[in-house]
């Protein structure tokens, strides 16, 4: 009998264009689109910062011979004149110049004068390369001067120079592989997307199957069919659950398809990670989302059956959006790592576990614990939903 209900509800859901868009089209189309957009946006922003021409103003170049020449020779820099030294900050603010270099008076120090060059620029932008590019140029000038002075002191070989300039060296060997490093940054974002899609996929069917029955006036006759109400709820729950799981799996499928097609073209360290996420990782990610879909379905169905209309169901489910989004976002915050405490926080634990899977550093005993606790919570939600569905004050709310 549950099967009869399931078949009928599924048929109705599949004939609803709005549900189909949320359940199938969005995850399949939007995920690859989003990924393409972010990767291309990030790389083009970096590219632009690296190649754009930097306008500069230079003060007292006579104090450091070679600096003005180096700037003029570099095609990436362009001099702007007529900016008064007193109005540097304002000129940077209104973008007349990107940076200003002010050379201090040299200090005599025996071997040769020490010169300080002051760099003024706006460092608020995360992708700004002003400091890096200027530093490179000034360092080159500095290195040339240094080499001249060392030669004058008859220190000609690289070893001699090194023993003077860096008698003690610290060599850093990072044991984290690149997958872990970048997974930490990108890995928080993907579970968030999966969780939202899983929720959105379940949302419309849940509203349609319960509040929709009330609004259309079909609930009362349905309740009078000679079948236990538990079976009725189970049939409906399974359809909503299927929708949530479908959305989640499709969004992972969207990720998988992107990874194995366009993702392969992404170069550099990001490309490395993309290649290291294997099919098993994707399957495990999907597995994590299944109890989550069950949780969402039971909760949404409970809210929906309480509501008297579509509209009411939508406004009642709005607070649940926050309850879903907030724990999913938590996993994106720096410093929040999967440990046994976080493993007990529903939704956040799944979000963190997906991040670990992408990083390739999952502790599998924790994975089992998270799956187990999520299944238990989903079970509690489902029991609540079935009990709730049998209350007259909910079904016939006046």
């Amino acid at each position, binding site marked *: 009998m549950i099967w009869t209900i399931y078949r009928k509800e599924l048929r109705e859901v599949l004939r609803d264009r709005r549900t189909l868009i949320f359940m199938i089209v969005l995850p399949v189309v939007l995920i690859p689109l989003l990924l393409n957009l972010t990767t291309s946006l990030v790389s083009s922003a970096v590219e632009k910062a690296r190649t754009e021409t930097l306008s500069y103003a230079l003060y007292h170049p006579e104090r450091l011979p070679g600096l003005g020449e180096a700037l003029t020779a570099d095609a990436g820099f362009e001099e702007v004149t007529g900016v008064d030294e007193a109005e540097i900050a304002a000129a940077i603010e209104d973008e007349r110049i990107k940076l200003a270099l002010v050379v201090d008076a040299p200090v005599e120090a025996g071997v040769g004068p020490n010169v300080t060059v002051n760099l003024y620029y706006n460092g608020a932008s995360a992708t700004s390369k002003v400091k890096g590019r200027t530093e490179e140029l000034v360092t080159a000038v500095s290195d040339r001067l240094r080499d001249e002075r060392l030669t004058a002191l008859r220190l000609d070989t690289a070893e001699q120079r090194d023993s003077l300039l860096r008698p003690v060296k610290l060599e850093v060997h990072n044991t984290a592989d690149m997958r872990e490093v970048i997974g930490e940054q990108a890995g928080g974002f993907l579970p968030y997307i999966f969780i939202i899609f899983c929720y959105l996929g379940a949302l419309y069917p849940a509203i349609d199957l319960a509040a929709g029955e009330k609004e259309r006036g079909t609930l*009362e*006759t349905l309740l*009078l069919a*000679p*079948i236990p109400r538990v079976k009725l709820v189970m049939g409906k729950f399974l359809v909503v659950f299927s929708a949530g799981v479908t959305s989640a799996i499709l969004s992972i499928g969207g990720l998988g398809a992107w990874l194995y097609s366009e993702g392969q073209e992404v170069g550099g360290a990001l490309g490395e990670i993309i290649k290291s996420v294997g099919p098993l990782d994707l399957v495990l990610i999907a597995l994590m989302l299944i109890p989550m879909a069950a949780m969402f379905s039971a909760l949404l169905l409970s809210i929906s059956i309480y509501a008297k209309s579509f509209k009411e169901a939508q406004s009642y489910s709005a607070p649940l959006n926050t309850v879903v989004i907030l724990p999913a976002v938590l996993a994106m915050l720096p410093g929040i790592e999967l440990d046994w405490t976080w493993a007990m926080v529903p939704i956040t634990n799944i979000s963190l576990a997906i991040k670990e899977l992408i990083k390739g550093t999952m502790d599998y005993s924790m994975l089992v614990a998270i799956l187990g606790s999520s299944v238990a919570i989903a079970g509690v939600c489902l029991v609540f939903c079935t009990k709730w569905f049998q209350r*007259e004050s909910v079904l016939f709310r006046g």
Partner: protein
Amino acid sequence: MLEVQGLGKSFALPRKRKRSAAERPDPREQGRSFHAVSDVSFTVEAGAILGLLGPNGAGKTTLMRMLSTAIKPTHGTARFDGVDIVAAPQEVRRKIGFLSGTTGLYGRLTAREMITYYGELHGLAREVVGARVEQLAARLKMGSFLDRRNDALSTGMKQKVSIARTLVHDPQVLIFDEPTTGLDVAAAQTVLELIARCREEGKTVLFSTHHMHEVARLCSRVVILAEGALCFAGTVEEMRAQGGSAALDEAFLRLVGEREVSEGAA
């Protein structure tokens, strides 16, 4: 045969509701509970049509819902051919067909799918349902739109689908809660013809309405509710006699009004 014995239903009231000065306190409110229907008893013979009358808010729908097993009575019970609504609700559901003026359809299913679904829910085998759908479609002249989606049907067509849905499991008892409310003349006519036909087939019919001409045309017995309590039960003739008017509207108002006056005096 339907026997209703001391049937009543109370609902819990929400905490402290502000009542305007003009609002008369409802005598059915007692502390935190509201006695929507209390101690209603009557019987209906098999093959009879019982009209259930009462002003809005009298408890008609609550009574109908208890009888159709949608909600459980707080006290008392009722039996359809000896089957108890409290003890064996599932068995009662197999015997009854329910239709109300606000009953809707699944818009994205076709008429055939909708009727078939309810047949299956009532435990009919697939072949039986198929034959039954054809039979009902022929009887209600639904052939032209049987495979169209309910959303695309006219009000009259929708009403026929609802009727077929109500009858798909061949119920012995039919419960109609204001079945003609909101329908146009033609659609209401279809429903009234259905009720008359049910009587010919020896089914028991219970229907609530505000239209006295429907009562005069169809009902053999009448039950009147006012403020949740039974205030009249008898034949249409007895209603005219006790109401002191040959016009049923007039008789109804007096029967309902009388009760209010006597209560005010007490």
